[in-house]
């Protein structure tokens, strides 16, 4: 790299470091994104691990004390629970279970005892609770049926012509695929967000402030200018990525992963791997954002273009984490690296070939964009906005 290029990189970095907007853009994301992710994981864990007690109304509970006891042992209680502190507000679901007056006598006679479930089935929020109650009632009914058969000397298994055995092959880590995908995606997206403001400032901003024409009237080649800008923006992206990883390392250690059955541990090996794999993505992010910003006539125009353009890597990343069409996506930028990282975090072997090819494609796209930029800086239309 020539002295002039180094001089320009140094100037770009000094200029950028003094630009509050550029620095804050990276910082906000680096601190904000991992914390938001943590908040999401906490919510998710809360929902997955402790099904809350379901409070319903039961009419005539004394008619079927055994059923009521069975339900409450499964966490479905009538009105107020004994464990609950007096005066605490109880969230009673709008579900009514009516036990018929002749329940006890019918049960004793060995004929069907009637229980009526009253609820609004169109209410989405009640669906889960209704299904849970139905399932428990059926289980209780089956249990009673078996007891009756045994009392009559019949093996209850005659009532089960098919015995279904389900073997779930999913390991805790593979179940975690989507969550891991989202977590990794927010990390790698840092290279796009952190360098974005600088990319706009140093291209569209530079022209808006009329310093681009001045720079071009000095004895530097357009490729030197383009390279220095790419290096500066890439560096910003990588610093943003590193910060995001460091914040994630601390934030994720507070998430009670054991309750999910898998863990996302951001250790130094992962950070190193992420930085290495993220580098081509950061270079491409820099090239893409600079290219688009150079085409825009003003800072504002560049901002609105970039918001749209940044949907593209976002979609690639989403597709990778949701496992949509993984066959082609594994060769593409962002999604390819992301899939490799997810494999790595799951503790599997890194798909070397796939990663190498997608990284090469990423770099090839970067080179094409850099070449386009270098050409565009020779165009009067671009430089003077004619």
């Amino acid at each position, binding site marked *: 790299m020539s002295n002039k290029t180094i*001089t320009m990189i140094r100037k770009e970095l000094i200029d950028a470091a003094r630009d509050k907007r550029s620095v804050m853009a990276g910082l906000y994301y680096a601190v904000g994104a991992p914390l938001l992710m943590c908040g999401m994981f906490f919510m998710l864990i809360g929902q997955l691990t402790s099904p809350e007690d379901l409070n319903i109304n039961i009419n005539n509970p004394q008619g079927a004390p055994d059923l009521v006891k069975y339900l409450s042992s499964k966490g479905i209680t009538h009105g107020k629970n004994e464990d609950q502190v007096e005066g605490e507000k109880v969230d009673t679901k709008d579900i009514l279970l009516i036990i018929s007056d002749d329940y006890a006598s019918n049960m004793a006679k060995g004929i069907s005892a009637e229980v009526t479930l009253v609820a609004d089935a169109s209410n989405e929020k009640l669906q889960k609770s209704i299904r849970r109650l139905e399932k428990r009632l059926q289980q209780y009914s089956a249990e009673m049926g078996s007891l009756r058969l045994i009392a009559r000397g019949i093996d209850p298994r005659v009532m089960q012509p098919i015995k279904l055995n389900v073997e779930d092959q999913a390991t805790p880590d593979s179940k975690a695929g989507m969550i891991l995908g989202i977590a990794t995606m927010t990390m790698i997206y840092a290279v796009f967000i952190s360098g974005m403001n600088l990319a706009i400032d140093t291209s569209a901003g530079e022209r808006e402030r009329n310093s681009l024409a001045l720079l071009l009237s000095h004895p530097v080649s357009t490729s030197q200018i383009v390279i220095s800008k790419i290096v500066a923006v890439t560096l910003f992206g990588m610093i943003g990525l590193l910060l995001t990883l460091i914040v994630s390392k601390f934030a994720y250690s507070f998430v009670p992963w054991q309750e999910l059955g898998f863990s996302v541990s951001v250790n130094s090996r992962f950070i190193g791997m992420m930085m290495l794999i993220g580098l081509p993505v950061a270079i491409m992010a820099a090239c893409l954002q600079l290219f688009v910003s150079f085409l825009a006539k003003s800072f504002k125009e560049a901002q609105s273009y970039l918001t749209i353009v940044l949907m593209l890597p976002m979609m690639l990343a989403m597709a990778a984490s949701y496992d949509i069409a993984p066959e082609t996506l594994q060769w593409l930028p962002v999604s390819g690296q992301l899939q490799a990282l997810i494999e790595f975090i799951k503790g599997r072997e890194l798909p070397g070939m796939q990663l190498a090819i997608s990284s090469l494609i990423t770099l090839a796209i970067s080179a094409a964009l850099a070449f386009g930029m270098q050409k565009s800086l020779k165009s*009067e239309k671009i430089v003077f906005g004619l």
Partner: protein
Amino acid sequence: MIQVSNLSKRIGDVQALNDLSFSALDGQITGLLGPNGAGKTTCLRTVFGLLKPDNGFAEIDGINIAKSPVAAKQQLGLFPDPFGLYERLTPREYISYFAELNGLSRSDAKHATSSVIEKLHLADIADRQCKGFSQGQRMKTALAQAIVHQPTNIVLDEPTRGLDVMSTRVLRDILRDLKNQGHCVLFSSHVMQEVAALCDQVIVMAEGRVVAVGSPDGLCQQTGKASLEDAFIQLIGTDEGIAA
């Protein structure tokens, strides 16, 4: 020396330059005088290779700008319009940045910057960020950038615009100094007094063409007018776009 031969350039529907030829010699101040829209800025941008002429060429010290842009630009210093300052850099950083871009080593650039800061009396603002500078301070910073690497040719685009009397005087003194050191100074202007006070040679431009060339006195004699202003109006045939 800056030599421009048969330059033609069309921008959109406007023939901005129309077979323009002139030369600006070393050790002289050459003024490019013309009404607004005469093609002065287009001409200077073509000299720097920022615009490609449809026809003709520009040479800096005999180097064709289109063929070897980097070598040709090495011989040029530009005082642009608008200034194009980096607001977050201090003048010292700004000046030495451009010195380094012109091939000076880091330490040489520092020395050159210090001496140009002294020369232009910039010391009091040299280490403050350019944001919020007055027009005069901006002018001095931009000028320092143009001359820090001691180019043989210095090109100034409308240098006195928006300057007060003191700043204008500083600028004039600097330009005369440069001339006496043997530099070639080329500036564009539409201000008569400026041109009359400074120039050894005046190139009168209108509609992208050279209308007349000569010293201020020579132009007056040629047209038989007493002042350069009257001579100018006589030459371009209208008084549109002229500042007295």
